[in-house]
């Protein structure tokens, strides 16, 4: 039973990883940018959520109403002011600039909030659980997983059914011709980063409600998201969900064997998949 339980918990944890991965996948798909600061932005969102929830006395999930637009705005400005200037055929500038951002965000959080771990008060939802077939499933992880499914379905809809998604795909296909269609690519890239950070905001709030966090853990979240992207297959949004679930299950099974192996087990599964299926399980796009 312990095993089934840890698998179920792993699946639900996979929802969080999928949200992290979806944000990464989105911007890579649109502008071939890998944002090294992605994980630190998640932690930033968690701290902003904590601050807003505490200051205004809001329930963390209600604070999303503020944090999502704020993070989206940060994303748009960041893209227009900084990241657009790094995009060219050379992969070095975006990599090094987002790496620099990562260090800046991490240390700014350290300066403001100290290294003490924090956690958002999830209230009754944090401890509530439902008994499904003899397995106790926490409502918060369940809600987190459901949210991940909705987020990915939403991104899928935006990408394939809306004018914004058409613009994303057009700019991704051919920047010059998209520009001829009247699309300002700098603006489109800004919108893509805004959307990515809106998803980051949701992931950050759930992360902060589920576990404690401190400024140093951003890099680890980036890695989990990245592993979910590669496992699922580049360019496949639903693939990120599968990738996240596989990673979450691997980690929980690892932890079941030996608590010290939790994160290691996830990395090992990732490396094994990289060795045998280097393009991921469900690739859609060439890197």
């Amino acid at each position: 039973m312990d095993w089934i339980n840890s698998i179920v918990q792993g699946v639900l944890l996979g929802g969080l990883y999928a949200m992290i991965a979806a944000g990464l996948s989105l911007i890579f798909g649109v502008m071939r940018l890998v944002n090294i600061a992605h994980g630190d932005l998640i932690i930033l969102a968690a701290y902003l959520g904590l601050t807003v929830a505490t200051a205004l006395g809001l329930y963390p999930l209600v604070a999303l109403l503020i944090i999502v637009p704020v993070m989206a705005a940060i994303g748009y400005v960041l893209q227009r002011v900084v990241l657009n200037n790094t995009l060219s055929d050379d992969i070095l500038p975006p990599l090094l600039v987002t790496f620099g951002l990562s260090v800046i965000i991490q240390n700014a959080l350290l300066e403001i909030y100290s290294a003490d771990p924090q956690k958002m008060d999830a209230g009754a939802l944090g401890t509530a659980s439902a008994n499904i077939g003899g397995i106790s499933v926490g409502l918060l992880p369940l809600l987190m997983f459901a949210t991940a499914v909705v987020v990915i379905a939403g991104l899928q809809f935006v990408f394939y059914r809306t004018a914004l998604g058409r613009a994303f795909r057009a700019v991704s296909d051919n920047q010059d011709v998209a520009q001829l269609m009247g699309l300002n690519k700098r603006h489109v890239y800004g919108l893509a980063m805004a959307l990515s950070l809106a998803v980051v905001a949701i992931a950050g709030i759930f992360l902060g409600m589920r576990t404690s966090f401190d400024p140093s853990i951003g890099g680890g979240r980036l890695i989990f998201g990245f592993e979910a992207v590669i496992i699922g297959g580049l360019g496949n949004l639903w693939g990120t969900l599968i990738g996240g679930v596989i990673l979450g299950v691997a980690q929980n099974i690892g932890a079941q064997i030996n608590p010290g192996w939790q994160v290691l087990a996830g990395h090992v599964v990732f490396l094994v998949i990289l060795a045998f299926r280097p393009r991921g399980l469900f690739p859609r796009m060439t890197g």
Partner: protein
Amino acid sequence: MKSSQTHTVLRSSQASRRAALVGIVILIVLAAAPLWAGRADMRLMSEIFLYLALASLWNLLAGYAGLVSVGQQAFVGFGGYLLFALTIFGGLHPLLAIGVASLFGAAMSVPVAALIFRLRGAYFAIGTWVVAEVFRLTFAQISALGGGSGSSLPVKIVKSVASSRTMREWTSYWLALGLVVLVLVVVYLFLRSRKGLALTAIRDNELAAGSLGIDIWRTQFLVYVVTAGLTTMTGGLIFLQKLRISPDAAFSVNDWTAFVIFIVVIGGIGTIEGPIIGTLVYFALREFLADLGTIYLIVLGIVAILIMLKAPKGLWGLIRERWGLELFPLSHRVETNTPRKDQNG
């Protein structure tokens, strides 16, 4: 009149020949540091040498071979841990252990490269980070080496380097100096070799990359393995000085990668001189701003971003543009030799 001009392709310039001479003098002065420097100065200089070694190696990897790694801490930590393991359990002399460790590091990098070379560009970067995390988490599981909390190098082993403390400190200073000279020479000779020139050509001209294909893959592979071996060696020396190791310190992304990247970016990526300038600037800034703690890192990050955006060739790039200097002659200059009048019939 028929044109009988000849062209001479030169690598060295007067500035670079003079630089070589000055370099030798500096080397002699540095080697004689025990005669003129205090204990604290020598310790600081050792640290500068070790960082310069890391920066030069990362620059070779990212700036020339296009392999942007954010996971070189894997090899730094590996070197540190191997030093401990080989001396404590293998009974090796520490210096021999560091030599052996670097071979292990190079050997270890072969399967690692086989795996992460499947990832391109930025994904390659994060892949290297995953590998470093695997190293960290694995060493944290080895209880004989202290597990998550780490361990110290036993006194007996420390003493085997040299019996007196002064002599030990001199030895580790000379080792650091020797290492940085070795690294700079390896990097310089590699870049002057045919393979190195091909890398430079590719970096400067993307079109060429496709046509050279498999050869480039082999060269990148070679660079990765050599860099891994030398980075492992540097790691061994770093922890021979620290005498204490823990997974978090050994595989720290901030200490062994973030600072190194900032050094190279600020100094000028893709030049041999860049890391040297960058290291000096980094340590100068640190002396002034170290008290600020995290603010120092934020400032460093902002400076690096601004340089990447506004002067992507770094401080050395600015200097070179201004004065056309080149201390390590890599690029070829063509001089037109106008023939003497009397030869024109």
